[in-house]
Every structure is written in C-alpha cells, then in structure tokens.
C-alpha cells in the first residue's frame, strides 16, 4: 500500500543495473505517533503549564515522607505480614492450579482441539482482567478481607504461570515422549518422565518470578478492601500523614528487595 503511494527510489548502479530502494517508513510512523499524542492530550487535559506550576506539591509530599515515622512500624507489622501471606498463599495455590490448566491447554499433549482452545481462552481472559478488578469482584463474593486478595492473586498467578507453562510444554522435544509411548508407557507416565523434567526448572522459575511481582500487587489490593497494607496506605494518604506513608513505603521496599534477592538466588540456581 505504502509502496504504491510513494514509489521506491530507483538507483542506477555504476554497472548499469537499476535497484529499488524502498522509501523510509519513518515519516509515516512519526506522523501517526504525533497525531495520537495530540488526540491523547485532548482526551486527558494534559497541560505542561499546570504541571510546571504544581509539581512542587508532589516533591513537597515526598519531602514530608522523609524522615519516616519509625514508631509506626509495630502498628503496621500485622498488615505487612498479611500482605506477604496473601501473596504467598495466592502464588502457591495459583502456581499449583496452573499445572492442570497448562497441560489441558497444550496442543501437543491433549489431542482434543476443542478442550485446548477452551483452556487457552480461559487463561488469556483471566490474564486480561487487571488484578485490582478481580480483587474488587472477589470482595463482593468472598466478603471484605484477605481472602478476596488471595483469590485475586491466585487467579493472576494461574493465568500468568499457566500461559508460560503451556508455551514451554508446546515447545519441548517430543521425541522422548513418543519413544516412551511406543515402549508401552501410558500417556500420563510418558508425560511424567519425558515432559515434566524438561519444563520443571522454568516452571519453578516463573512461579518465583510471579511471586516477586505479586508482593508488589498485594500491596495495593487493600485499597478495594481486599486486605493487606493497601488499606493503611489509603487511610494515611487521606489523613495526609506523610511520615507514616514514608514508613510504609520504606518497609515495602525492604520487603520486596529481600524477597527479590532470595527468589533471584533460587532462580539462578534453577537455570
């Protein structure tokens, strides 16, 4: 299409041959991006003037958070622990549930195309919903509290680990599987001995990676009433008690950092 509107440039080489150089797409892409930016600015009332005038408020708030209010730590410990518990439980159950889902969604293990398609659609639909929306729905179904948060994290982990796992399973070397089947093993035995060892390290590694991210997500779920530290964050922001917010953020950063370091250690070992 583009090539027809802007015909390729013809270049005459010294040896008499004519080669065609395609016109650059860059102007078109820049034009589209510029148009999208203008439309977006229109839709969002973005204004650099307001930003320049009021951004000091933001740094003022950040400044108020330093130094954090250390004495607040004992009071927030329970909520922090609940956040970690939520993400731990949700990640574990989610990662375990991901195994049957992923197996049922991989086209080289399951021969029934309909089943494969259904499970793939379930996984991608689950992945689409932002976890805060799932948490919101879960608070209506399971009541306010950490249970709703666990459900939201569980569903997200299931979709994320499930997708990575079925992609892994679909890409394994099927030779061993076929050999074992032809040697008289059942499909389940062949799966256990031919496919599982191939995908296990990356499955564990992606579960750990997902857990790392979940700790961060769990911190905001409290905002919709799904337990954890998010409730304290929104309360204290409402009261403009910035030193306390600073303390919460500091302890979150330390927690996330520790968990990331531990998980990275094990993930490096796996690969």
């Amino acid at each position, binding site marked *: 299409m583009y090539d027809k509107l802007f015909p390729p440039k013809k270049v005459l080489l010294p040896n008499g041959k004519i080669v065609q150089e395609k016109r650059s797409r860059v102007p078109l892409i820049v034009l589209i991006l510029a148009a999208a930016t203008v439309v977006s600015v229109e*839709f969002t009332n973005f204004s650099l003037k307001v930003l320049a005038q009021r951004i000091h408020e933001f740094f003022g708030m950040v400044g108020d958070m330093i130094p954090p209010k250390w004495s607040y730590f004992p009071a927030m410990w329970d909520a922090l622990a609940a956040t970690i518990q939520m993400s731990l439980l949700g990640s574990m159950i989610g990662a375990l549930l991901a195994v049957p889902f992923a197996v049922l969604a991989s086209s080289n293990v399951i021969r029934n195309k309909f089943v494969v398609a259904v499970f793939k659609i379930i996984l991608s639909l689950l992945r689409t919903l932002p976890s805060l929306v799932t948490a919101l729905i879960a608070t209506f179904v399971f009541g306010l509290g950490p249970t709703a948060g666990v459900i939201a994290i569980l569903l997200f982990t299931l979709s994320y680990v499930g997708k990575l796992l079925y992609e892994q399973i679909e890409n394994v070397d099927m030779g061993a599987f076929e050999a074992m089947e032809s040697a008289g093993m059942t499909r389940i035995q062949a799966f256990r001995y031919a496919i599982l060892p191939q995908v296990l390290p990356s499955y564990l590694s992606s579960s750990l990676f997902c857990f790392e991210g979940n700790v961060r997500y769990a911190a905001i779920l409290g905002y919709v009433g799904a337990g954890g530290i998010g409730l304290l964050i929104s309360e204290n922001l409402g009261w403009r008690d910035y030193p306390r917010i600073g303390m919460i953020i500091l302890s979150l*950063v330390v927690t996330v950092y520790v968990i990331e370091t531990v998980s990275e250690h094990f993930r490096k070992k796996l690969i």
Partner: protein
Amino acid sequence: MTTVEKQLLASPRNYRYIFILTIVILLLFGWSLTAASFKDVNQSGLDIAGNIVKGLVNPDLELLFNVSKQSVLYLLVQTAAIAFLGTIVGAILSVPLAFLAASNIVPKPIAWLTRLLLIFIRTIPALVYGLMFIRVAGPGPFAGVLTIGITSIGMLSKLYVDAIEELDKGVLESMTSIGCTTFEKIRYGIFPQLLSIFLSVTIYRFDMNMREASILGLVGAGGIGAPLIFAMNAYKWDQVGSILIGLVVLILLIEWLSNKLRAKLVKG
C-alpha cells in the same frame, strides 16, 4: 550391577537440601493459610457471583455503544489515551535515568545511586502515585497520565539499562579510528543499536499500561475504573458486564497489536 546403574547411583543427591527446602515451603504455606478464611462466604456472595455472570451474558448494550461522555466507548478511548501519553512521558523520563544507571557509561557510585532511586520508584504502588498526583493535578485523566508516566519509569529504565550495557563497543572504536565526530558516533554507532530494543520495550510497556490505566479510575484518576466501581457499588451488574466486556476486548486488541509490532521490530 551394570555401568548405567552405577552411574545413576553415583549422581549427586542432595536429599537433605531438598528436605529442608520442602519443610520451609510447607511452613510458609501453613503460616500464610492463616490469612484466608472462607467462613464469610455465604448465600449472598454466591448470589452476587451468579449476578455477575448474568451481567456478563446480558450486558447493558445502550451503555456500551452510545457516544456520550459517560459511555463505555468514550471511557475506553480515554483509558487508552492515558496509557499512551503516560507511556510517552515515562519513556522520555527513563532514557536519561537509564544512561545514569548504566555502569559502562557513568562511574560506579552514580550508577549505584540511580539504581537505588529506581528501586524506590518501582516499589511504590501505582495507587499511591495516583492519590499523590490527584493533589497535584486535580482529579481526572491528567493525574492518570502522570501516574502511568512515573510507574513506567521503573521497568522501562531497567530494561533500557540492560540494552545500554550490552552495547557493542567495537563499532564505536572502529568509528573513532576512521575519524568520526562524537555526534556521528552517537547517530550511527549507538542510535541504531538501541532504537529497536527501546521501541520494543516501550511498546510492551504500553500494553501493560492499558491494564494499569484501567484501575486508576478507582482513585479518581480518570479512565474506566471509576464507572466500574460505581456500577458495582450500585449492584448494576448489567453495566458492570458491559464495562468488563469493553475492557477485555480493548486490552486483547492492544496486546495483539503490540505483539505484531514487536515481532516486526525484532525481525527488522
């Protein structure tokens, strides 16, 4: 005993390590079990679950397709606009930060300090930024753009740094040896190496930002989140259904687009 069996038995077995790890994991599992309880699940919860499904099957079509400022369509475009502009703001802010955090460009201490700053920026939850920016820019989509911008910085600069640290220095050396100026070195030596990776990462982040932008409305920072929570609190499940359907379709669409574009970038 055959050789194969001997080899099999000779392989290192760290039973103790695995045993201790299993115990630790089981203990952690037991500890975290105390967080969840299912005694609050009662008949009304199940009713609501049923109603949500009913709402998804019979969405409010009027809300989904009309073109006023309250319609799902308008709000979805607004959400996409927030994500788009936020990604651009984030990408612009990330580039200098990424160069400051790359240990092959700047001295080690500066790189380390920038990385520490990035860890802080990355860990603060998006909703905290949202609530803070509402105080700066007032409730509305503008606060959403700023929030998305700053939450994108964490991941974008981390991946940019990886690309910068893998720069092929040989190209630059050969350009110096044939007498290129600094500007030419940047334009023809560094720029082509980084551009496609930066673009690919940015497009991926835009895809993620769609999800982020759709929840910012919960704190009043524009987009589709606010009507969603209002509809839920008012138990209007048909509206919830139409909003969720619109959201899922849009996110899937953008994910598909982003995958296409990135595949094209990788192939060159």
